[in-house]
């Protein structure tokens, strides 16, 4: 994936409002994550890699689209780090770039079934496209 604009750790910290330097790498966030198995990078790794400035790797991560926004990681972090906000900031940094939407409205019709609530569609569009 080629990215149009370089994104720095400072950008992620600014967008998320999170102080990743507070992270002590205890792993409690990842232990709490209900979609851990679907992720290549896990919540505690987001905290560590933002600190180290490894943003490009995170921007290519499939975890960005597997996070359920359940806030278990943020709730259970003993240091108030809020990994969910770091993941959201990296995802925003990707989908804000031209041509980098992950899912667009064109993809929705074939995903619909009789019962799917509108809430699912607007949420997915908010999470996966700009």
């Amino acid at each position, binding site marked *: 994936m080629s990215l149009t604009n370089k994104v720095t750790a400072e950008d992620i910290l*600014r*967008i*998320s*409002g999170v102080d990743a330097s507070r992270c002590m790498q205890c792993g409690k966030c990842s232990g709490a994550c*209900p*979609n851990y*198995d*679907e992720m290549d990078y896990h919540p505690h790794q987001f905290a560590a890699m933002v600190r180290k400035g490894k943003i490009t790797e995170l921007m290519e991560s499939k975890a960005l*689209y*597997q996070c*359920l*926004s*359940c*806030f*278990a990681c*943020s*709730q259970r972090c003993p240091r108030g780090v*809020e990994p*969910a*906000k770091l993941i*959201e*900031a990296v995802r*925003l940094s990707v989908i804000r770039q031209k041509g980098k939407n992950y*899912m667009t409205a064109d993809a*929705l019709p074939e*995903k619909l*079934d009789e*019962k*799917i*609530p*509108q*809430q*699912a*569609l*607007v*949420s*997915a569009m*908010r*999470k*996966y496209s700009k």
Partner: protein
Amino acid sequence: MTYGYYPGCTLKTKAKELDVYGRLAAQKLGILLEEPENWQCCGGVYPQGEDEIATKLSSVRTLAAAKEKGQDLVTLCSACHHVLKRVNLDMKNNETIRQRANNYLKLDTPYGGETEVIHYLELLRDKVGFDNLKNAVVKPLKDLRIAPYYGCLLLRPGKEMGFDDPEDPTVMEDFIRALGATPVKYSQRNECCGGYVTLENKDAAKRRASTVASSAADAGADLLITACPLCLYNLEANAGPSALPVKYFTELLAEALGVKEEL
């Protein structure tokens, strides 16, 4: 008691039961829910980015409209509640977001998070009171073993939502007892149903939903209750063989209060 009431889009479409039974029950309890005019969709998910302003504006409009009428704002859908509550806190506590949102909206008086956002369950607990609710029940739901499904959005982050103890909530159990039924406690009651990821990774959503449903079934529940249309969908459509019946909590409330009509 008159309150502002924000239904949100799904309650006008796929989740009519959540809305209609909620209104009928409120009426029976002497509560008037007034829907603001021209409300817009909250977006379904809270925009966590500090620099996300446009995505927060529809919520701010709704919150400011309630303030104009001097009303607290009642919500029913867990997702709408989550979004409105957190955007409201941003408007109250985050100077930059407050300024930027007000710059866009150009309201007569700037909005600064003055509106109280109250979930319907909080209304029952804190304004009506579960003892009074119990006294208003005409058809106790005896012999029903109900598993309350809290999910994520009402509870977390606990310090923002302030809804209940995020790891050991009790409001839905108390609600179930007030209706005369028996609450069933199970470990997955506050773990995610899979959420919007059902549109992106069906298998992962199925694993989440079946884990929740089987946890409730193993604990001996006859049925699950929820306040969220997407939780209801996932628990019904994605739970596979472990699926239990799932209902909105307002449907049972209307039934116990004797005001349930067939929709």
